[in-house]
């Protein structure tokens, strides 16, 4: 099915306007003057016989928000889950190509997977707090690292809840179940939980798709706050959201990276016709 799709040359547009075609040397791909936090090269991924990602080359700028957009089933979430090797959990997954996080290969044998995942926080599409108290939810990342000092935990939990803009709502009921919160609050709790391990990169997999507009607005607000602190990669179905929160936008279609560039450029002058059609809502 994938093979019958039109062949699209992946093009990486960088905010300086430099265009690098597939097959050229992308070892030190610049994102303007910015450092690449994550860098993929010829990333291909198969679930069984089904190739989901085709030769994706993408650089994610450090401490910027990068949005990944595209129609359903185009491989955005799968792509996101590659960065902290969540796809390892799915059987029959085959990955070729390379992913580097701050220059180090995440498929390297020497890599400590737990350390990698602690450095790359992830927030999922569906709010998934643990069936524990709010406090324990946020403290979880620290506890599994072996930090059990009460004072340290208290401090960190408060900081994270504040950073996730939820402290005021939950400060009086830290020892209630995380599941007693509303959907939007749960999702912000999940963000706080992800922030507790001080991740350098935060992966958000359609974090607002299950939320009401007000909660969505709060999450977006939160992303503005996080900007310049951590590198954020967000997958979203909501084009408007990508436009509002992101600095860079990658457009994926049928497992291929069709276009990547600054959000401003993608949204105003997309180079590829598919991008334009998608943004105009012609398909998706």
């Amino acid at each position, binding site marked *: 099915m994938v093979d019958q799709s039109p062949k699209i040359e992946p093009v990486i547009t960088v905010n300086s306007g430099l265009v690098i075609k597939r097959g050229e040397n992308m070892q030190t791909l610049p994102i303007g003057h910015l450092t690449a936090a994550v860098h993929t090269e010829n990333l291909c991924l198969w679930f069984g016989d089904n190739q989901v990602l085709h030769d994706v080359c993408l650089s994610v700028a450090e401490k910027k928000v990068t949005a990944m957009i595209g129609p359903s089933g185009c491989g955005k979430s799968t792509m996101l889950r590659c960065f902290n090797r969540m796809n390892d*959990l799915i059987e029959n997954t085959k990955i070729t190509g390379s992913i580097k996080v701050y220059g180090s290969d995440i498929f390297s044998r020497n890599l400590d997977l*737990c350390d*990698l995942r602690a450095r790359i926080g992830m927030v*999922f599409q569906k709010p998934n707090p643990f069936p524990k108290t709010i406090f324990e939810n946020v403290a979880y990342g620290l506890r*599994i690292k072996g930090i059990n000092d009460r004072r340290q935990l208290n401090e960190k939990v408060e900081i994270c809840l504040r950073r996730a803009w939820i402290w005021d709502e939950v400060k009086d009921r830290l020892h209630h179940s995380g599941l007693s919160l509303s959907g939007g609050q749960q999702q912000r709790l999940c963000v706080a*939980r992800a922030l507790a391990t001080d991740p350098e990169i935060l992966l958000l997999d359609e974090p607002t798709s299950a939320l009401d507009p007000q909660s969505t607005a709060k999450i977006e607000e939160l992303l503005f706050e996080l900007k310049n602190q951590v590198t954020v990669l967000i997958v979203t179905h909501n084009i408007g959201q990508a436009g509002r929160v992101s600095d860079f936008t990658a457009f994926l279609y049928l497992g291929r990276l069709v276009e990547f560039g600054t959000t401003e450029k993608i949204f105003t002058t997309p180079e590829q016709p598919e991008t334009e059609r998608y943004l105009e809502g012609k398909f998706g």
Partner: protein
Amino acid sequence: MNRKYSVRKIKEKLGLLLFRAAIVISGIFLVMFAVMIILRGGSVFIKTCAVNEIADNYRLRNVIIKNGVIIDNKKYDLSINGKIIKGLLKKGMASDIEIKDDIINEMKILNLQADRIENSYARINTGKSAIDTGNPELLKNIQFCIIEGAAAELVEASEYIMSGGVEITKIKTNLVFTGGFLENISIKNGIIRKMKLVKPLRRFSLHFIFASPEAGMTAGGIFPALIGTFYLTIMAMLLAFPIGVLAAIYLNEYAWPPRAVQIIRTAINTLAGVPSIVYGLFGMAVFVNFLAFQVSILSGALTLAVLVLPIIINASEEALKTVPREMREASLGLGATKRQMIMTVVLPAALPNILTGAIIAVGRAAGETAPILFTAAAFYFPGLPESIFSPCMALPYQIYALMTEGTARVQTSIAYGASIVLLLLVLAINSSAIILRGIIRKKRQW
């Protein structure tokens, strides 16, 4: 359109009817089960004991004793507070009292349902001197005999005094009620001199649960069997639960490749369906003989543990599968190792469902007869087990023994009574597990 709608409606109705019928049939079976078992076994919880004496003003006349045998006692005059009532001896009255050498040899009690007439012979073989002196021990014995024989359905008569050899010449205080028993019988020269009928009081008693069996399991309680079953069940669960849960974790989370897992699962499912007698033989071969634990609680508990292990593994695996993938991913995404994920997220989340499986296993372990037949159960071992290396009585086996070896009718009711206790024991263990599960659920707030 209209017709189609009505067909749909009928189908709906029929469906509902079918579901209702199913639940009604299950309900009927359960109710029948409970009623039967209580009817047959409930009597063991009723203890008859004598309390108040009966008033003075009752008189018995026309009871003739010849050669030490009461004859022609069908007619009597009853005087209640001076007023004489004539009548026939009613069902449930003592009759055919045979006295030989100052000993009451036989005493027949009417009243009883036809099938119990035979048992209503109350044989009293107490010694002469004892009766004369009114030794309380022997008097108690008489009482016991009468109660047992007449199934506590005796005539109630109070104190008769007879004199003049064969004929009753004087009745002082006296008799005749249904339900009651004789006490203070005093006999002189082959004559019942004094006989006190006492009103019985039936009340609920836990004597059956907390007493040891007596008289070759025809009397007394079932405490050693209860304790034996309790030990066996608890020990089997203590052994099987951790092993089962850990094995399920391995199978569900770690085992690889899938084909090998499939084979192991099939093997476990097969084991879960193996008849329990096979486990009994296995237990005898391995624990009793090979490991030389002898017939002991340890052997029995190990055999039961092997029996319930597949059940616990299956249930735990199902429970682990219900833990949503998002939970696992959230945990791993925060940098948890696989072990940390399992211990901190998966296991706590699955624990209530694992406990549900364990509850089923408890019922199985407590109720199985065959596995303990050769490994732990003693036919008659009235004391409490001293260590895990001693054999013990066990409820299911005792029920089996009572029903197969016993001849006395009373053993049937003891067997049914024991099954009530077994049910209550399983219910008690289950309830505590359910309460525990409730506490965990509440704490985890799923």
